């Protein structure tokens, strides 16, 4: 049980970072931390004690395997995370070039 709780604490650390940080890069960093903890959570769910990695070698087929479904989901979610992070970074560099700062509050008062 302790591993799941630690993983959720990591999720909350990222969540805290998104809420309280004002620097754009720090928000992107805490979002990717939340992402990392979600992938760890999926991998923890699929683990089976004594299960082997899900590669079938025809020599000795009979073995208990780890659950492949959460791994398939994480495989897709990792590349989705890469897509959202690269979009986020494109916007951040664009905002930095326009406003000259990474701080949200300054961007808000300059925007007005």
């Amino acid at each position: 049980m302790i591993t799941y709780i630690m993983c959720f604490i990591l999720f909350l650390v990222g969540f805290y970072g998104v809420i309280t940080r004002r620097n754009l890069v720090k928000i992107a960093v805490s979002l990717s931390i939340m992402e990392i903890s979600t992938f760890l959570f999926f991998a923890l769910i699929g683990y089976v004690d004594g299960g082997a990695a899900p590669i079938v070698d025809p020599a000795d087929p009979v073995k208990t395997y780890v659950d492949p479904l959460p791994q398939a989901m994480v495989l897709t979610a990792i590349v989705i995370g890469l897509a959202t992070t690269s979009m986020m970074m494109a916007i951040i560099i664009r905002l930095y070039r326009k406003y000259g700062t990474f701080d949200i509050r300054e961007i808000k008062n300059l925007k007005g």
Partner: protein
Amino acid sequence: MNPLLPLFVITPLVAAFLIMIIGRFVSGFNKVFTSLILLFLACISFYFLFTTGENIYVYKVGGWESVNNIPIGIYMVMDGFTAIVVCIINLIGFLSAFYSISYIKRYTAENYFYALFCLMIAGMNGVVISGDLFNIFVFLEISVISAYALVAFGVEKNELEASFKYQVLGCLASFLILFGIGLIYWKAKTLNIADIKTAFSNGYDKTYYLFVQILILSGFGLKAAIIPFHAWLPDAHSSAPSPISAMLSGVLIKAVGIYVIIRLFFNMFVVSESFSVLITTLGTLSMVIGVFLAIGQWDIKRLLAYHSISQMGYVVLSVGIGMILIARGTRPEVATLAIAGGLFHLINHAAFKGLLFLNACAIEYTIGTRNLKEMGGLAKYMPATSATSFVASMSISGIPPFNGFFSKLIIIVAAVMGRFYFLAALAVIVSIITLASFLKFQRYAFYDKPDFKRGKIKEVPFPMIFSMIVLSVICLILSLLVIPGVREAILTPAVNILTDPLKYATTIIGQ
């Protein structure tokens, strides 16, 4: 297993890629091709609307039959409720694409605009017809990422800042949803919505259930801009190019937000009373606060964006009342009436909110400003826009002949019959304030003194007028849905899917 179902996702995807490849050589290609594809999709969705009725079409992607009736592949499901939302997506999508033929000349890189538009439509269609939880998440990401890019399409300062805020909150919502899917998989060990319902209905732990529902509600509630999570909506909708804000406000928050909440909380989770009370309070809060925020606005698109929040509050309120009554098991006919009113208002809001945003865009296209103080007396110069805007304003504030009145009437009647008098009174007050704020919009924009120094104002080009007139005609036709004959064909199948808890699960597992 009819083969038409995958067309909803394949055709926009193939269209997007063809636009990216061919649009570079043939200049006018992307505009015409997108409109044709979306018209074709609108026809298919109308075909589905009139033929599904009570039955549920299940399409097993990849041909994987269920193994001792546990579904293993991904299922595409088309039932009454899905048919309605698919019609909204493709029809408003076609009209916005047709509308932006002349509007998009102001922006560079039209190819990107049309490719992203087709991808957004493909994402929304994918979310609506999929019956698999993780599949909903993947297609949700497609539509939301293309929405981020389209909001930041004219790369000005405030558009970038609005798109950044939208991205941060959207990404946060996606990780909450992913964590919720992880928790659901942990307990139910399957991803098919119907299968999860059977896994959940034979026993669950209360705090686990509460935690999963909080995660899923806050994730999708953030996509639907319900009140505690609405911070991104006004900026994103007011700084996006107008056909896109018509799509965002009219369709995206419904197809990706409200539809998924209703589908999951009726057909996947066991309806629990404490949670339906929470949903109803969120609905009333967003209804009331949305309208009070909207009164002080002078920028047309921000005013319309805040009104979207309050109108969505109506839908969530009436669906919440239906959920409470189902959870209590008392007065089932009032529950069906409340849900029917909610769905009816969902359809109406798509029509008149899309039209209002297109009108705001026509005004901005000719005068170049969105501030109500700097306008006046446009009725003489722009007869078509002012007429359609009058139709839309009257229907959003619920004036009898138009569709808004009938759906709000059904909601208020259902609230009164279900003995939620306070909610019914609130609904009436909010409707009156909406009427006041739209009269202000009409007066300042169209009927005030014409003080123009900027030379002759001419009417907007044909594609814009065509879309606006078609939408205003739809606003009038939709009010026919109140007549029992028409309502039986379209609304009641959708309501039966939601009210009867086990119908969705048993038919899908059975097929």
